[in-house]
């Protein structure tokens, strides 16, 4: 079983003997949603339309690309939402309205993210606390820390130098007119994570320990080190998402609320298996775009809020059912 997973990650999308190449259904769902958005609002095909969409989706996409590391290794990371909040609130406190401080505040936030990831990983690996509980504890702790630090009313604005990543569009690009910095961050971060997951030994080991930790350990995979790496990747993605969100929308004390579940949902829409052993970075990013597309579509159609909630729920269930269906056909992994 694990052999099959490993081979399929070595060459994703490559035709296997006797079968047509399989394309993850999330891409069809996403395409259908984008067509629907275009039909309900023709302006969406203008650069302002789709670029705004991508800019808005970037934080969640990055978060999902990090979360998939933990999910593939057989865990959950619930602390990412609160880490986003801590990043935004902490940056505003450290910057203290000083635009020149951005150059050291951002590395400081990454250092905090690194620490959070390592602690999560250590608690899960060595203290044998289930990741659901360990990261839930971390989520509560970080929310408390953000509140204590700021007393609920963060002291500073986020200066333009900090907001550059989440807010600014680079103008004057041929064909597409402009490109949001957030999209460039997503492309860079996404390709790094893609390479790490699907082109290196680390990716194979992640899949192996998520699929069958005992077997992986027996065949020499350093269980603890791989798990800790997964949590670190997830935490760093949360800090990145926090920097983009703070840039997009400014300071608020509850920016990160709910993002952990959205990220996990995005991964599941992208076909990840919740108990580990299966998942892909591009599909998780597509899952995040799908989620954002659902929100955007329903905004455009202008349905009343209760109807919107119902439709949103139904689309979500359909997307997940599609993902599961594909998994079952792929041989019960």
């Amino acid at each position, binding site marked *: 079983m694990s052999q099959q997973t490993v081979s399929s990650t070595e060459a994703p999308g490559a035709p296997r003997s006797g079968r047509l190449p399989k394309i993850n259904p999330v891409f069809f769902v996403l395409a259908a949603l984008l067509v629907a958005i275009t039909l309900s609002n023709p302006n969406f095909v203008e650069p302002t339309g789709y670029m705004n969409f991508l800019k808005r989706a970037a934080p969640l996409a990055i978060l999902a690309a990090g979360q998939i590391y933990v999910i593939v290794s057989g865990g959950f990371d619930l602390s990412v939402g609160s880490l986003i909040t801590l990043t935004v609130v902490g940056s505003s406190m450290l910057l203290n309205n000083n635009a020149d401080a951005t150059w050291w505040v951002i590395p400081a936030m990454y250092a905090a993210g690194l620490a959070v990831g390592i602690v999560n990983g250590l608690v899960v690996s060595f203290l044998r606390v289930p990741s659901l509980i360990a990261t839930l504890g971390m989520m509560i702790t970080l929310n408390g820390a953000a509140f204590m630090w700021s007393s609920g*009313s963060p002291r500073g604005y986020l200066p333009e130098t900090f907001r550059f990543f989440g807010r600014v569009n680079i103008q004057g690009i041929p064909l597409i007119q402009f490109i949001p910095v957030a999209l460039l961050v997503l492309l860079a971060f996404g390709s790094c994570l893609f390479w790490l997951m699907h082109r290196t030994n680390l990716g194979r080991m992640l899949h192996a320990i998520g699929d069958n930790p005992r077997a992986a350990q027996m065949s020499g995979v350093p269980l603890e080190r791989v798990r800790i790496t997964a949590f670190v990747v997830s935490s760093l993605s949360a800090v990145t998402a926090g920097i983009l969100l703070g840039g997009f929308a400014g300071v608020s004390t509850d920016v990160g609320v709910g993002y952990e579940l959205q990220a996990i949902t995005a991964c599941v829409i992208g076909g990840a298996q919740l108990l580990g052993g299966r998942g892909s970075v591009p599909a998780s990013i597509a899952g995040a775009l799908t989620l954002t597309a659902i929100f955007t579509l329903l905004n455009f159609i202008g349905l009343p809020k209760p109807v919107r909630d119902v439709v949103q729920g139904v689309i979500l269930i359909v997307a997940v059912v599609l993902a599961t269906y594909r998994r079952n056909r792929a041989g019960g992994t």
Partner: protein
Amino acid sequence: MKRLLTAALSAALIASTAQAQQLNFDDPAEFARQRELLTARANGPDGEPWVQYYGDQMADTAKFKKEGPYTICFSNAGVNNAWRVTGWTNMQAEVKLHPEIKELIHVDAEGSDDKQISDIDDLINGGKCNALIVSPNTTAALTPAVEKACAKLPVIVFDRGVNTKCPVTFIHPVGGYGFGIQAGEFVAANAPTGANVLMLRIVPGVDVLETRASAAKHIFKEKGLNVIGEEFTEGDNAKTKSIVEDYLQRGKIDAVWMDAGATAVAALEAFEDSGLPLPVITGEDQQDFLMKWKAEGFKAIAPTYPTYQWRTPIIAAVKVLKGEPVPGPEWVMPQPSITAETLDEYVNDKMPPLHHAMCGCEKLPDYPAAWGGQ
């Protein structure tokens, strides 16, 4: 049989909530009363709205008279948003002005009805409190707990109300309709006739917010404005900005009406980032919005739900324990708006972005450090 019962029960439930909603949020008499209060003259010293009140009905407190020093207890619904943070800081500072107060015992219900009910129970049974201040989490759920407390000691309720007249007084500003009227009338006066108005709200179903919206809708209807949408932002900046960007892609927005100002700056940035002129907008008294207003000079108003009302319960409690009369059973205080003319009095770049400027706190001890200012 079981299924039938369930169906009947849920039908009854739906009917009762529907009725409750009809009752609460669109009351023409209350709308008219608050509209009048907005221009009425309040009693009490000028420039100190936290001790001002409308009307002249007083509550007799002779029976509560007691020798000091006093222990005052406060059951707080929560310190879970920036408005409540500013308010709670005001209250702590107010206590320092009263040497006759020995101690303020504060219990934070963290936004939970259940916790607040047991908090109030604990405070009564602890036997240390001379007076109890309650800022209820929700109206109906906290009523029995407040009634129970009334039997033991003087109770003062503020911010959200309870469904009982047993407290000595209920302190609150003019109200949600007043807020909606101030914001609605400003939009009507400053946007072109037939203008497109986008209404941005936090969440549905909260009485003080529902009344703001229903009052504004009355005004828009009265003046013939076109409400192009009513959206719920959950107080989330990113969501607000996304919603406004989506509306801007579909058509023109002349004015943005908000039931609370926390996300006003995000709404404005959606216009900026789309390269459009800023709309007529209603915000609130948070510094980030006031700073933006001052810098960009767009047409705006900031109605307030003033945080200085957090000072008043302490003042009232001390009076009650000294046996002096206080306005009651309701202490209705002024609810000013910040306008382009008064903006300069309130904008202050030394205060944090989420600080609520209508705090009446500038002369309190430890200002501005305790409020996070420099």
